[in-house]
């Protein structure tokens, strides 16, 4: 089986620790549930990700160098 998360078009997904989550939520003034979602079964997720975790996705961007996106892992 191909490990999708290693494909060069799949950006880096990492689980944010609690402090990081707090900082992000503080930064944007949102609740955890207001974040964009990612399903638990998404093959790009790291193995340790669980429902309720916040994932940081780091994309390469031609204009912004790095584009950071945060997603909440949800069931289904």
């Amino acid at each position: 089986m191909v490990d999708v998360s290693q494909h060069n078009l799949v950006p880096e997904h990492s689980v944010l620790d609690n402090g990081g989550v707090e900082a992000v939520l503080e930064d944007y003034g949102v609740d955890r549930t207001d974040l964009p979602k990612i399903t638990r079964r998404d093959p790009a997720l790291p193995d340790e990700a669980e429902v309720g975790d916040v994932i940081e996705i780091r994309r390469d961007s031609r204009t912004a160098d790095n584009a950071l996106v945060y997603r909440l892992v949800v069931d289904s």
Partner: protein
Amino acid sequence: MSDQTPKEIGSVSFGLMDPETYREISATKIITADTYDDDGYPIDMGLMDPRLGVIDPGLECRTCGKHSGSCNGHFGHIELAAPVIHVGFAKLMRRLLRGTCRECSRLLLTEEGMDELRSRLVRTQQLGEDPQDVLKAAIRQARKTDRCPYCASEQYEVKHEKPTTYYEVQDVLVGDYPEKMAAAMQPGGSGDEESGDTGATSPQELAEETGIDLSRINEILSGEFRPRPEDRQSIEEALDVDLTEEDMNKLMPSDIRDWFEDVPNEDLEVLGIDAESSRPEWMVLTVLPVPPVTARPSITLDNGQRSEDDLTHKLVDIIRINQRFMENREAGAPQLIIEDLWELLQYHVTTFMDNEISGTPPARHRSGRPLKTLSQRLKGKEGRFRGSLSGKRVNFSARTVISPDPTLSLNEVGVPERVASEMTQTMNVNLQNLEDARRYVSNGPVGHPGANYVQRPDGRRLKVTEKNCEELAEKVQAGWEVNRHLVDGDIVIFNRQPSLHRMSIMAHEVVVMPYHTFRLNTTVCPPYNADFDGDEMNMHALQNEEARAEARVLMRVQEQILSPRFGENIIGAIQDHISGTYLLTHRNPQFNKTQALDLLRATQVDELPAADGENDTGEAYWSGRTLFSELLPEDLDLEFTSSAGDEVIIEDGQLIEGTIDEDAVGAFGGEVVDRVIKTDGSTRARVLINEVAALAMRAIMHFGFSLGIDDESIPGAAEEQIDEAIDNAYDRVEELITTYEADELESLPGRTVDETLEMKIMQTLGKARDSAGDIAEDHFADDNPAVIMAESGARGSLLNLTQMAACVGQQAVRGERINRGYEDRTLSHYEPNDLSAEAHGFVEHSYRGGLDPQEFFFHAMGGREGLVDTAVRTSKSGYLQRRLINALSELETQYDGTVRDTRDTVVQFEFGEDGTSPVQVSSGEENAIDVDAIADRVVEAEFDAEGSEAVAAAARPTNLSERADDRSAGLDLPPAAEAATGGVNDDD
């Protein structure tokens, strides 16, 4: 109305309505189906009862005392003789029936199950998902339960027969059970054969096996006693027969109402139903609200007859059946008749709500037209939401045919006088504009810059007529309002459908003109996708100062030159403009003074630059490139490759070398236009585009430009060459076919032999056409108009030229050679299974030479595909666009840079993930953002500004009105004003 203060809506709550509330708000009970009596007066407690509101002007409402227009109408009610199901909730009712106990009405889930659902409901709400999914999951779970966990009663399956009938499916004993049992007990009876037991079963054996008394067994066998369900089961097991059949027990609406009444509130809460506002039994109607007459006005026809609204017709039906139902029941009619009437009442109430239910014949008008009932009023494109609320017809709008006018600026629109004097702008008269206002009024409604209405400070509106205009003009004072005609310089909104992107609606400045069409500059055709073959466009006059200011600053054409789609200019030179600049700059022709001045006369340049030299006769001359350079900003430095293929070099605003064509000044990404708008601003870019267009028109008229059939002719020798090339191709195709028929053709990887042959033939013929084109091309001079247009990018391509002059080439349908028509052949002119080029749509002639009949037919086939494609594409993409807009319409970029929807859920953490506007940033795949250059420019501008702050501030254009710009620019034009236009970089 006007003295009411605006209110803010705090919240809106949707739910079911309690029948008691219906009765409370009802203005009257409706008992007769009649509407008007013989004298034409509405009958009391009839469908047109005056307490339900007024529609006839002059009458007073018996409920609120208001007159028609201000009385909104009042609901009445009909007491239904028997409960009836509301179709809109049929699905939810089915779910509740399946999910609750038939005896105790509790939700068929254990406490743990309910707890889990409760937490799931909270989570769903937090994540903003659909609570309906939770309900569905809960019902799915509850349906699996056979016995109620609370009262232990057995549950049966509920069958829903659309639209409004429900059955309980129960297993009951068949009528002929003794016969069945006897048959099974006979030797060789059912079941025993399989088990290999050939012997018969005696009643004694049966009694032993089932544990039932022998006497009881005998009673059962004789049909005197019906076995109890448990006994039945053991008998079934013992004899291996099925003694049951499915019995459909119809649930009457009254049963369902009783069932739902007992569902506890706590159990509903688990399903996401708020019992406070929506008790499930309210889904069964016992009382029907009657809409006010204002919602179903009757109209009086020319012959004095009254014609009632569809809803009224439907209500008449309901009341009639309702009365018959009651009469029959009181008379003690048989159950069968009562049930029939009940069903009829259900049908009428159902179609009153929705007349497009599948499986139910729609209720029809006497003429056979289906009635338009409640649901049909709301649904669809012409329904209340899409037709009356989201989309309304508007005042102050005009529509007419458009035509071109190259003398207008791209910011302007020519408005016919008739339109200008119909649509008005409100003038608030004060001491400053009193004179103007009086002049407008005294011109009357017919004279052009006139006025149509005036409004006195007391709010009274007076129509200006030709008779009273002089008199009225005297009376106009400060504080009045005057609705004056549109005049030059007013801002209006201009639109062409389909409005596919934001540049389909732009603000233009009015230029009032004679005749009957809207006039626009040809350079704004690309953003509107307009041409002048009969296109019509809409104009909207703006009615308040905020709208006008916003339109001016945000929507004016010059602010829309850059397209957010690809970040480059969408407005620029097109077609003849490009041919014109090409002619002017490609060979760099020379012009004498008269000619040079003539070329530049439509621009703001009123002084010629130094001459480029003298010709043989000693006359001074100016080159085309020099003249073009006059339009460029002083400090422009640019290098790029033109579409004609040569290097264009612009230094210090002088075109040193190269051809100005589509890649330089064209719409859709002309380098010069793009650079100028990004460094010097939209006003400068507007001036540039206007002047390039004007100069180009002068240039193309100077040289003359036409295209005729002779321009595509090639010498006979060349034609022979082309014929030879095509003959060669035919030979190669013939070879391919022989190899194929000899089964010697080798297939390409992943393709069959047939496909390989087709591909190779297509390839060969494609090459043949290309080489024919190459031969033809060699014989066209560089000044051939078709070549000029193709090379400059003005219109057409070399392929078009090839098709006109050399060979039209292979015609294709669905990407393949033409293969359809008769059995095994395309036309009866060919042998069956002929694989040759000409039998499958290869057109070897040119358009100029003329196609032979078969070729013409194949060509029409290929052409038809294109037409069908565009027709299909437009409808498909229109629907796609609608869905996309609906999905994205409420997303909004917040002040913190995030993009969020209306629930404040984050969609993007930074707009476009980089927070930049595609219109403001110029970068492509190959050219990244040149940060250094931008920094240099800003710093330079900063230092320059320090020295000449006063001068720069004075010369900066207002950017608000083209006319204001021109006035200020007229004072001192280039170089000083031009350089200051950009503001950012003046480095002289």
